């Protein structure tokens, strides 16, 4: 594979990693607080729809982003109400949210815009545009490093940079702040948090709502940064890939970056691979195998054949004061 192809694969790796990474980090806040969230897919989709609608009707990408975050948080609040306040089953609530998002976005989209569920095509000005980092054009012709800086690092939109910066930020929040300590504690032993005089409910809602913010940004990225409108089911299972990445990352932000890059790379890699055979092997890799590989890898990891993924101990269980 030659150099330019590699560079373009890596470039699309970054683009494809972004939404997964955002969802994965969001899921990290939720699951670290002890609330499993298989509804991330739905939150992202719903947020993407909100972004598409808001950007189209206001003409502002930032209002689109804001609407997306609001939409993500709205569904998070629903998940929180079901799982924290009503102590409902977290898996069931997540499943419901995924269907609710799929149904609502398609129904409203079709009813409002009559374009088979798509929101109107956006002007470039109402999307998040690529940003040229300082000096990108200047160093463009420097061998090796120039194209890497210009083609790979520079030239992405704001949300891409936000996603990658969220990794160290999340690490810092989780391991270096009071909120992070409490968040990790409540996912492991909520009774310990409760007896320390801290509200389990508030902490868990915080984790779940932060997850909604991240899913919201991810949705905005899909609809008004990567694409120029919302189209039905555009999340296409990325929320589940993010969950797989979270398991792969063992609920650690730095691991999340690695896992998401790996899955993003696999997705990017599948594109030039279409129909090509692996050099030296003369053997065509079915593209479906590449598509399925994040899921297969996750299953192998879950089976404990490559290390053990131990979820937060209190995850999935509603907190009830013991009698």
């Amino acid at each position, binding site marked *: 594979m030659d150099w330019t192809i590699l560079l373009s694969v890596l470039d699309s790796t970054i683009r494809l990693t972004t939404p997964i990474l955002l969802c994965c980090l969001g899921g990290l806040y939720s699951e670290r607080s002890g609330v499993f969230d298989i509804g991330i897919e739905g939150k992202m989709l719903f947020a993407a729809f909100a972004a598409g609608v808001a950007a189209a009707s206001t003409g502002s990408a930032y209002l689109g982003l804001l609407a997306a975050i609001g939409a993500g948080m709205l569904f998070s609040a629903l998940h929180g109400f079901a799982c924290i306040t009503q102590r409902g089953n977290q898996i069931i609530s997540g499943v419901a949210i995924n269907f609710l998002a799929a149904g609502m976005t398609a129904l409203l989209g079709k009813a409002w815009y009559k374009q088979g569920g798509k929101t109107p095509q956006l002007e470039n000005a109402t999307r998040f545009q690529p940003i040229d980092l300082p000096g990108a054009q200047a160093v463009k012709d420097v061998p090796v490093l120039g194209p890497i800086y210009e083609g790979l690092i520079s030239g992405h939109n704001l949300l891409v940079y936000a996603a990658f910066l969220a990794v160290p930020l999340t690490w810092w929040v989780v391991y*270096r*702040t009071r909120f992070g300590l409490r968040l990790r504690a409540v996912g492991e*032993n909520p*009774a310990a948090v409760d*007896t320390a005089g801290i509200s389990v409910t508030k902490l868990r809602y915080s984790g779940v709502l932060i997850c909604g913010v991240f899913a919201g940004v991810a949705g905005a990225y899909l609809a008004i940064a990567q694409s120029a409108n919302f189209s039905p089911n555009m999340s296409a299972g990325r929320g589940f890939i993010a969950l797989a990445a979270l398991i792969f990352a063992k609920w650690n932000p730095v691991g999340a970056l690695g896992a998401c890059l790996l899955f993003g790379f696999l997705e990017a890699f599948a594109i030039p691979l279409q129909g090509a055979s692996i050099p030296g092997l003369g053997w065509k890799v079915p593209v479906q195998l590449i598509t399925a590989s994040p899921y297969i890898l996750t299953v192998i990891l879950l089976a404990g054949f490559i290390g053990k993924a131990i979820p937060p101990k209190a995850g999935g269980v509603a907190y009830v004061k013991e009698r």
Partner: protein
Amino acid sequence: MAAPLPLAIELIHIDKKFGAVHANKDINLSVAKGTIHGVIGENGAGKSTLMSILYGFYHADSGEIKVNGKTAHIRTSQDAIAAGIGMVHQHFMLVENFSVLENIILGVEGGALLKGGEDKARARLKQLADEYELDVDPDQLIEDLPVGLQQRVEILKALTRGAETLILDEPTGVLTPAEADHLFRILHILKDQGKTILLITHKLREIMAVTDNVSVMRRGEMVATRKTSETSPQELAELMVGRRVLLEVDKSPAKPGKEMLRVENLTVRDEWKVARVDNVSFNVRAGEIVGIAGVSGNGQSELLATLAGITKAVSGKIFIDGEPVDPVHEADPARMRERGVAHVPEDRQHMGLVLPFEESENSILGYHESNAYGSGAMLDPEAVRADAAIKVRKFDIRPDNVRLKTANFSGGNQQKIVLAREMERDPKVLLVGQPTRGVDIGAIEFIHKQLIAMRDAGKAILLVSVELDEIRSLSDRVLVMFAGRIVGEVSPETDEGEIGLLMAGIERREAAE
């Protein structure tokens, strides 16, 4: 009862109901500053509820709490902490994959960032370690610490939060005698430094050993408060139970027959490879009750689970009625039942019963494969109910409705459901764990009588109980377990103090010297 010292804590007319259960009835309790005050009572007497109210974990329906003479409005644990009250819970409230330090600062981080608070807590821990003999490495993970040290972290948590009054809820249940002794030493140091201690326990020995005053609770009521120096274990026991304790169960001498259960060199390890049962050998003959005494957590539960086939052993042999069973490779409860081993488990709600099932369905648990309940693969609910109805009548289980959800039966009746199931199978060997835990007095007598009747019918019974009185009054022989080993065999008439020494791991020879 004029206390010379000012009062640290006053509970006035505290009342609390959980649905139909009246957990605390108009409770009054005064605790003098700088004393160790014991609160004793049977399981379910309402001690833990009362302390949870004081700590803000529950809210009383009515009543008043005073701290240092002033009314305190304690609605949350945060309020309790602010009022200078700390609590060491029976089940530790620690985050296991956190370091000691992280657990200490949880809730009192001292700022939005951890760094400053951690440094301060580190210094404070050093200081407390010197003051109270409370050494612990702040950077160790909780899950790597032994139970005794985990408890120490709990005490440190309370002290770093500025606790002047410390509540300890059944603190010795999980401790070895040596750890318990160390704990009591720490409690004395704390008292000498002016702290007030509330010790919640159901163990008379501890009350007599460390407290200055003792209050007795029974069925949600506070029945008496005494100076410890002016009372006796006998009086406290009577107050706890509510009438003269009949330590003697009416029984004739045992007529032991053939050896029905034989255990040779049995060793069981837990998932961390620690030996929970360590090279244990003994036998039980037909027509006798062999009791196993010991502080809970010394391997009795694992022994019972292994004999029942639930837990695998790593080595050793078991013989049922002379027939060998391999506990290493053939551990299987169904197989043990086939061999004639019945098992009344220690925790009936968690293990012995499926609470959402109707009564009749629980009456066949473990024996459901029998053709009496349907031929082959099929199950015949009518046959099951008919069979359950017979047991309900025989064991006087109330209400006598075999279709009622098991969760709706009282503790004593739930235990009778289990006993009826296990006894009516005509087993050769009956394993019984904590037969009367959380069971009311009337049912206790009934259950004891049934066990004696089983013995007299020629069954071999192995009895495990943490209630030494129960062991002594029912058993024909007593084995004492300590740290996974059987450290002695005594007759049930043996002096309680001597058995106590064995339970504490001090062998008789040493004790005699």
